[in-house]
């Protein structure tokens, strides 16, 4: 159930959506396509689903060349940002759709729909219409509908983008658990790096129609390959032309080797961690992450002048 994207390019008029993109997704993995809007991530997902045609390149789904296959022959499940619920059908009919068009026996359809309603916790809502559901429920219904025909791969296009923060966090957690249960190869598109880090076990970071880096969340955070990945995945500071993560900075009351003078602008506490926002004497904004203990040791206060020192930093060669 692996997915292979090989040298795919796609243009819309003058706009290059994808430029020679290659990506390998292992069977059973949960992969995020992460990037700002216009980076080409949705286009890539839609090309894998067969909803767009690449100008060049190949799509291979579990060893089979799918480039010329129509979407209905690819056996993929697709979940849209705005649910794409069939408004004139009940929840049950929505979920049964993929099975009905495959002419499965009625009893089998009923059993499978019951199973999926339980899986997405919508047992009590089978006879409602989509308009009578909340956004989160609609998206769970859309997921059940996509899973019903037992697709080889599950593709989700900004699946939580239209939901409010609390529901989004809930569904995120739920998608991860679902993936542990169902084990279908899953790719989801997001522009939210926290969401990608939280849910995926592999992330492909996209920017300007290209893939910048593919790796686990830890790899991307600890060993970013490019300046873009450094700045887009996790927080990053630019200090004297070098990139450094907030937790890699330390503060002191006296100048030390290679330290920079800065003014404490704001101190915020987050659970065990503290974030200190500063402005260097050169006018650069900085964010430093400290433990509470360290904060207490330093007896830091707003308006103080301190010395910032990087414990490690990176330089990217363009």
């Amino acid at each position, binding site marked *: 159930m692996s997915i292979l994207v090989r040298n795919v390019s796609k243009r819309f008029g003058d706009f290059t959506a994808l430029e020679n993109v290659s990506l390998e997704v292992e069977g059973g993995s949960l992969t995020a396509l992460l990037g700002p809007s216009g980076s080409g991530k949705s286009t890539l997902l839609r090309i894998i689903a067969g909803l767009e045609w690449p100008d060049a390149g190949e799509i291979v789904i579990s060893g089979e060349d799918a480039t010329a296959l129509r979407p*209905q022959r690819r056996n993929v499940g697709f979940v849209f940002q705005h649910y*794409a619920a069939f408004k004139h059908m009940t929840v049950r009919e929505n979920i049964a759709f993929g099975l009905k068009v495959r002419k499965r026996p009625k009893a089998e359809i009923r059993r499978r729909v019951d199973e999926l309603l339980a899986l997405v916790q919508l047992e009590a809502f089978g006879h409602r219409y989509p308009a009578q559901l909340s956004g989160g429920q609609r998206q769970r219904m859309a997921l059940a509908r996509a899973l019903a*025909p037992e697709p080889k791969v599950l593709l989700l296009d900004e699946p939580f983008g239209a939901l409010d923060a609390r529901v989004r966090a809930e569904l995120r957690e739920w998608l991860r658990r679902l993936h542990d249960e169902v084990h279908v190869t899953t790719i989801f598109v997001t522009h939210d790096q926290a969401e990608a880090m939280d849910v995926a076990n592999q992330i492909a970071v996209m920017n300007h129609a290209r893939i910048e880096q593919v790796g686990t969340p830890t790899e991307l955070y600890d060993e970013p390959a490019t300046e873009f990945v450094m700045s887009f995945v996790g927080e990053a500071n630019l200090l004297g032309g070098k990139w450094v993560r907030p937790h890699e900075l330390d503060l002191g009351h006296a100048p030390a080797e290679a330290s920079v003078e800065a003014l404490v602008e704001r101190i915020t506490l987050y659970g065990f961690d503290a974030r200190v926002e500063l402005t260097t004497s050169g006018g650069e904004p900085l964010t430093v992450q400290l433990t509470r203990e360290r904060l207490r040791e330093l007896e830091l206060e707003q308006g103080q002048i301190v010395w910032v020192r990087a414990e490690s930093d990176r330089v990217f060669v363009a």
Partner: protein
Amino acid sequence: MSRLLARIGLRSIMLFYLAAILVGPLAIVFWRTFEDGLGPAWAALTTPETINALKLTLIITVIAVPVNTVFGIVCALAIVRRRFPGKGLLNAFIDLPLALSPVVVGLSLFLLYGQAGWFGWLSDYGVQVLFALPSMVIATIFVSLPFVAREVVPTLREIGDEQEQAARTLGAGGWQTFWRITLPSIRWAVTYGVILTTARCLGEYGAVAVVSGRLQGQTETATLRVQERYEAFDLAGAYAISIMLALFAILVLVAMTVLRPREEAA
């Protein structure tokens, strides 16, 4: 208080307008028809010429409405969902029947199918188009062409194509997607389009008047018959046929309302 007055005032104006323009004339027609009881009205309706005229109008409507419904849906799908050269032209041409006077439509058909016209040779093979059912059907189709497409286009735009894409990824082919997803989503637009088309077909006068030749008992539709009776000073006959036309129209409206299933909260 002033808002209440404004509302009452607005309502009165609206009701008065409707009464003066719509209900009044209709009521007079009804009253005149049954002025002398049911007998004369019934007698006027059951002459062979009138029965033939009503039958002809129904036949033309029954052919023209399905043809224009299919054409309208296909056109709307092409305009909203496809990209092709000449799309703007198609979009503009669909409205042509609304802009053209029906008499002009009739005349152009006359020129096209007449002895010297492009399709004049058809009569050499025994296909009688002018002064017969074919030209009347063509004229009616022409004048009632835009309604279904014009109703369906905005609805198709509004629903977008995500549901159709979802159906595709779930394994549905083109036909299945159309029957199970697209058509149910646009059914109300199609319904209203069909009502308007039917009304237009029943009421068509100008184009049919030109191409039919108005042969009594043969190519005379109900509206032509009304005019004929009126000119023959048979007002009771004219009124009776008018009532029948109005009843057909009301019947269509009622049928659509009854057929309309309980609308799910959308």
